[in-house]
């Protein structure tokens, strides 16, 4: 990462190479740095050939689910009968995640170039970049970059539009994002039909994350083999990944490391470890929606899709939230639950009512009015909220609650039995 501090020697700087370099934001500056060469190259290739390169590289979706990108592209109809669309998910709202923001702030053309290549691969003529509403600065930068690229006729007949979100977390869910683009309430849709068959405006659509697409030009230019070789642990997780580290570390920020990098080294080495005199208590490695790791698990965890699953969590979006020994886990989990209760779209019963009830129970525990049975109730409730709804928002609320109770049960019990003083819940 090049901003706000110089890249650490152990980082593998690909996406973040020009972070902090204001010239890279401009069309000319980007071209001078080798930008748009990959797009020139892609224009000479057949769509299927581009998809094959990406498939071969092992690139997986960086938005959270980790679905192989090339495979996703190959789901689009080969013989085109209807207009195809690409939606770029720049609605980065996952608590603890701020990587796409930096990509758009510093290398907007990397995203535009990746978008154009993906459009060619899936034979789309229109792409929507759905930018989180609160991202005013990245939006302005993207707007300028797009205007410059269009003025230079960089994309030919391809049309790329920027679309601003209106402040709902759920619009980062791909089907809700499509509804939002259509001007509807951002409610997730039931699947099937899947977007590749019936997406935005009912047409075949692919949705990709910003970081995923920003990696595509590099893969095109330097080859699938080069990208595939970047894997420290499992060969199924390739390339580099930006990790947004926040919380109780000395140097929070975005760090780009090769897949399979140990979380322990990221925290203690790259981020400078905890504040003096404090120790690591817990860590959420993939944004707020994934299970919490305790200290031992964090220190064992390797940062790739499989390594996280091995520790019982997920790589998610790469938003690393770090808690040291001063953190009150009950309070932190309540804050997460409250976030999901606030953001639930209100469609599915389990999510609408379950997230709010979960929050109320934890708030009462914090207020010193909890009961021992509350913990079992929370677990049962979370069970009801997992795998039963249209999207995974309710699962995301359940994940930190279940893992929190499992790993930090004593902290909950301290409140319930009165060993710990009540905190004022604001």
């Amino acid at each position, binding site marked *: 990462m090049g901003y706000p501090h110089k890249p650490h020697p152990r980082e593998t700087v690909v996406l973040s190479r020009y972070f902090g370099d204001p010239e890279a934001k401009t069309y000319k500056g980007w071209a001078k740095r080798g930008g748009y060469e990959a797009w020139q190259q892609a224009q000479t290739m057949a769509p299927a050939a581009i998809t094959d390169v990406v498939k071969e590289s092992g690139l997986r979706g960086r938005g959270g689910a980790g679905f192989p990108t090339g495979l996703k592209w190959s789901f689009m109809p080969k013989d085109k009968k209807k207009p195809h669309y690409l939606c770029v998910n720049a609605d980065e709202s996952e608590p603890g995640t701020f990587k796409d923001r930096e990509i758009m702030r510093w290398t907007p053309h990397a995203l535009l170039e990746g978008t154009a290549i993906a459009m060619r691969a899936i034979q789309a003529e229109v792409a929507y970049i759905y930018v989180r509403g609160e991202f005013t600065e990245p939006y302005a930068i993207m707007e300028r970059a797009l205007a410059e690229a269009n003025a230079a006729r960089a994309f030919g007949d391809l049309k790329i539009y920027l679309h601003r979100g209106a402040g709902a977390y759920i619009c980062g869910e791909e089907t809700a994002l499509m509804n939002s683009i259509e001007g509807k309430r951002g409610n997730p849709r039931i699947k099937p039909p899947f977007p590749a068959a019936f997406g935005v405006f009912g047409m075949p659509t692919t949705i990709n994350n910003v970081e995923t697409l920003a990696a595509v030009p590099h893969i095109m230019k330097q080859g699938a083999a080069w990208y595939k070789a970047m894997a420290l642990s499992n060969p199924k997780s390739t390339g580099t990944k930006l990790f947004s580290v926040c919380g109780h570390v000395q140097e929070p920020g975005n760090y780009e490391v090769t897949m399979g990098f140990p979380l322990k080294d990221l925290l203690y080495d790259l981020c400078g470890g905890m504040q003096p005199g404090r120790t690591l208590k817990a860590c959420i490695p993939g944004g707020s929606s994934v299970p919490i790791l305790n200290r031992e698990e964090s220190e064992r965890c390797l940062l790739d899709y499989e390594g996280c699953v091995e520790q019982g969590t997920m790589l998610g979006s790469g938003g690393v939230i770090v808690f040291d020994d001063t953190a009150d886990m009950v309070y932190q989990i309540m804050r997460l639950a409250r976030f999901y209760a606030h953001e639930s779209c209100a469609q599915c019963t389990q999510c609408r009512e379950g997230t709010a*009830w979960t929050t109320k129970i934890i708030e009462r525990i914090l207020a010193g009015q909890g009961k021992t049975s509350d913990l079992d109730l929370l677990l049962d409730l979370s069970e*009801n909220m997992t795998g*039963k709804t249209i999207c995974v928002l309710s699962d995301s609320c359940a994940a930190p609650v279940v893992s929190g109770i499992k790993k930090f049960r004593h902290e909950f019990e301290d409140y319930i039995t009165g060993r710990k003083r009540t905190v004022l819940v604001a």
Partner: protein
Amino acid sequence: MPEDLVKLTIDGVPVGVPKGTLVIEAAKQAGVLVPHYCYHPGLPVAGVCRMYLVEIEKAPKLQIACATQVAEGMVVRTQTAEAKSARMGVLELLLINHPLDCPICDQSGECELQDFTFQEGRPATRYSPEYPKRFNPVEDFGPDVLYVPNRCILCTRCVRFMEDVAREPVLNVSERGDRAYIGVHPEARLDHPWAGNVVDLCPVGSLLSKDFLHKARAWELDKTASICSGCSQGCNVTLDTRDNVVVRIRPRPNLEVNQYFICDHGRMNYRWMNRGDRIEAPLVKRRGGGAELHVVDWDEALDRAAMVLRGARGRAVALVSPKASTEALFLARELLAPFEWTGAFQVVMGEEAPLAAVPNLALRAERAPNGTGAELLGYIRNYAAALEAAESAAVVLVLDEPETTVKTPGALLYLGTMLSDAARAADVVLPIANVAEEDGTFVNRDGRVQRYFQAKPPPGMARPAWWVLAELLAVLGRGEPVASASDAFDRLAQSVAPFAGLSYAALEMTGKQVAARPAPAAAEVTA
């Protein structure tokens, strides 16, 4: 089972259904009602209540029966521990913010939240009584609809009805999370001519009819299949009666006619059925008794009417109501058949109000249920011509047209429900039942003959018009009296070609086609 059907098993019961059928509909054929809230066969699938979670063999997790299509060899289980526990979880969550005010709720007794909670809910809540429940004040949505947000389970049936069926999207889901409620457009009212359906669609007591508000409890109601008499569409309805008073009309599904809906005009068209100012006994003018009508028993009244008919020669005119049953219209024709007769009816016209997304469903401009039946039996729409003919007629028969003043040198027989001033001119007045008080049939504008059933007894000595006319024919020695509407219909079927071969049994609950459908854009011709 035919080969083109998809075969699957639901709770061990094998069924065959057409390709594309949803599991929840296939389950109905297996005799399994999968609990559901947001799903309604007349609305697009939403998949949001998550109540209909069932186990499907080989699926990694529970599936929603309302959005999953059947597949060959599919094995569906609704009663596994996992599925039941998931549904129990949904019920618990639906109830945590529900006020549980069943004792004062209109829906109580016909509430799907009550029903499914009784069926498979948790016996007690785990929601601590100290937590406040969500509260929002009652809102006035439109002319007949109240919204009680506290009872709402956000199934969105009402939103989808207005958006996708009525195509006037004035409702939405406002806010998010557990603060969500049904919102109405700030500058609109829920006053679409079909808006009342949202009350029927609401599975709980959240959308209420102001007209029915606190009028009766569901378990006090008797329900009778009927046909709406509000227009020529012939929507299938249910008359809800309490102590022999019609208190509500609700739609009865008939996919050929009205699907699951009725318009507000038809819904409100029942108060007249309960009117108290009815003719309750036969009345006759005694010979030499001047203009005064005397109360008599049926025998005397029928004898007097028979005498009038026997003595008459030449022209006869029938002025009939297009709200009369096909059976009565037929027997009235039979009665006047020996004469040179003219029969006519007149129809009140109003505004047409279609339900946008349902083809061939509208509140029709022609506000009478049986104009087509009258036409099939030879009655004409030229009422003025019939009135003119009456001026030279020996007998005029008026069938429930109380406002018609007849100028005739001949005798006047009046069969009706109300004793209007015009009716007082009659020589014989015979009290008849209204649509809620008799069995009968109507033929709708599409030529579909459909049965309606008796919901309450007629007042006093009033009898169905078909009974009265058949008795009169019997007194005249022209046929046996009929014991039931079914007998009257059989007589009609024997002598009127379009009805040939039909019987009440053959009509079943949804009716049969007796005439070709008119061309969709055919202009209505009236006298």
